[in-house]
C-alpha cells in the first residue's frame, strides 16, 4: 500500500472516529464523553468526504455535530449535579465487552472474507446531488419515505416538547 495524501487523511480520520468512540464509551466525565462523541462524528463526516458524499458530510456536521451533539451536551450540563459521581460502567461490563469483541471479530471476518480489497466499480455521477434531490420528491422513488420522515420529525418535535415540559 503506497502512502498518498488520501491514505494519510483516511488514517487520521479513522483514528478520530475510533478514538472518539472509545472515549464515548470509556470516559467517566460525561462532558468529556460528549466531546469525544463530537470527535467521532467529525471523523465520520471526514470519511464521508473521502467517500465522495460531500452532501452527507455537510448534513452530518449540521445535524449531528451542530444539533444532536449540542443537545446531548446541554442535557449533560443541565443534569450535571448527579453526573460523574456514579461508576461509569455497570456490573455486567465484562460480558458486554465480550459481546462487543465477538461482534467486532465476526464483522471483521465477514468484511475481510467478502469485501477484501474491493475498489470502486464506477465514478460518482457529477449530478448525483441533483438526482438525490429529485428522487426525494418523485413519487416513483422516495416521496413516501420522505413524507413519513417529515411526519416522524414533527411527531418527535411535539413529543419532545410535551415530555420535557413541566
Amino acid at each position, binding site marked *: 500500500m503506497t502512502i498518498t*495524501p488520501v491514505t494519510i487523511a483516511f488514517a487520521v480520520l479513522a483514528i478520530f472516529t475510533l478514538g472518539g468512540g472509545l472515549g464515548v464509551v470509556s470516559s467517566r466525565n460525561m462532558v468529556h464523553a460528549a*466531546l469525544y462523541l463530537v470527535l467521532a462524528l467529525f471523523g465520520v463526516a471526514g470519511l464521508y468526504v473521502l467517500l465522495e458524499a*460531500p452532501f452527507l458530510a*455537510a448534513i452530518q456536521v*449540521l445535524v449531528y*455535530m*451542530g444539533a444532536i451533539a*449540542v443537545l446531548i*451536551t446541554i442535557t449533560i450540563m443541565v443534569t450535571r449535579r448527579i453526573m460523574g459521581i456514579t461508576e461509569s460502567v455497570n456490573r455486567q461490563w465484562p460480558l458486554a465487552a465480550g459481546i462487543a469483541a465477538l461482534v467486532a471479530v465476526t464483522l471483521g471476518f465477514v468484511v475481510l472474507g467478502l469485501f477484501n480489497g474491493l475498489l470502486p466499480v464506477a465514478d460518482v455521477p457529477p449530478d448525483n*446531488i441533483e438526482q438525490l434531490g429529485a428522487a426525494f420528491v418523485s413519487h416513483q422513488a422516495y416521496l413516501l419515505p420522505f413524507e413519513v420522515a417529515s411526519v416522524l420529525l414533527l411527531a418527535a418535535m411535539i413529543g419532545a416538547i410535551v415530555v420535557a415540559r413541566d
Partner: protein
Amino acid sequence: MADIFTTIGSWLTGLFEGLGASPALAATILMVLGAAVLASAVLFILVFNIWFERKVMARFQDRIGPNRVGPWGIFQTVADLAKLFSKEIIIPGGADMMPFMMAPVIAVMSVILIWAVVPFTPNLIGTDVNIGALYFVAVSSLGVMAILMAGWSSNNKYALLGAFRAVAMLVSYEVPLVLTLMIPVLLTGSMRMNEIVAAQRIAYLFMMPLAGAIFWIASVAEVGRQPFDVLEGESEIVAGYHIEYSGFAFAMFYAAEWAHGFAICALMAVLFLGGWRGPGVEQIPTLGIVYFLLKTFLLYFFQVWTRAILPRIRIDHIMYFCWKFLVPLSLVLVVVTVLVDKTARSLIPGYMLTGSLIEMLPRAAVLLIVNVAVALLAIAWVAWLGRRERERAEAASVSIAPIESGATAQQAR
C-alpha cells in the same frame, strides 16, 4: 479567462513538479498552501477591520478613536495584539483543561472554514463544492460547540450562563438563517456559490429584499453583534462565555468573533448582492475581487453602523422575535416564493430567460411584488399585535387608576 491567480497557481504547480513532486503531490501542496494563504489573509484583514470598526464607532459617538500608533492610529490593533500575545494565559482553578484550551481553537476554525467557499473572483475560490451554501451552514454551526465548551470548562457561573444563552440564541437564529438561505439557492437552482453569484445579473437583494433582510438579521444574531450581544452582555453576565480567558486565548475568541462578523458580510455580498459581479468582470476576472471587497466592506460599515446606534435587546425579546416573528415569516416567504415562482414559470412566457437584463425583468418584478406584499402583511400583523398589546396595557391601567376618591372608585367597580 486567464487571470493573475490561475497564472500563479499553474506557475507554482510547475515549480513543485520541477522540484521532483508527482502531479498529485504538487496539487496537494498547492491546496495546503492555498488554504494557508486564505486563512492568513482573513486574519490579516481582521487587523484592519478592528481598526476600521473602532474608528467608525468613534465617529458615530463623536470621538476621534485610536490615533496614536501610526498614521490615523492604523497600527493600534498591531500594538493591541502584541500586548495580548505577551500576556499570560491564566487558567482558572477547577477548569477542565482539554475543553478549555480547545474551545478558542474551534471557535477560530469554524469561522476560517467558512471562507473556503467564498468566491472572490470567478476563478479564485477556496473550493467550489456543489454544496457550498449547505457547507456554510454546517461549519458555522460548529461555533456553538466552541461556546459550550468554553462556558462549561471555565468553571464559572457567568460563563456557563452566557454559554447557555448563546446556544439558545444561536440555535434559534439558525432556523430563519437556513430558511432564507434557501431562497437564493432555490432561485439559482444550485448550492454552488459561484453559480449563485453568476445567476445574479440582478442582485437578489433587489428581487428578494425581505429575504435579504431576514438573512442579515439572523446572521448578525449568529455572530452575536449588537443588538444581539446578550451572549457577552458586559452589564449582565460580565463577559459571558469567555470571561475566564486571557492573553492569546482571549485574542482567539476576539478574532473569531470579528472574523465571523466579516464572513457574514462576505456571504451576504455573495448571496444577495452579486459577489464579484460588476461591470467589466467578464473581460478581466481579477476585477471581481475589487467589487467583492467593495460590497463586503459596505456591508461591514452597515454592520458597524447598526452596532453603534442600537441598544442591546433583552434575551427573552430576542427569542420571542426569532420564534414568533422571523421563523413564521421566513417559512411563509419560502413557501410563497416557491409557489409564485413555479406558477409564473408556466403562466408568463419567457419567465426563466436569463439572456439579458431586460429578459430577466419579469421574474425580478414578480418576485419583488411578492416580497413587498409579504413584508407589508408582516408589518401590518406586527402593528396589529402591538396595538392589541397597548390596548390591553391601557385597559389594565384604567382599572387601577381611580384611587383619588371613594365615589369614583365605587363607580369604577
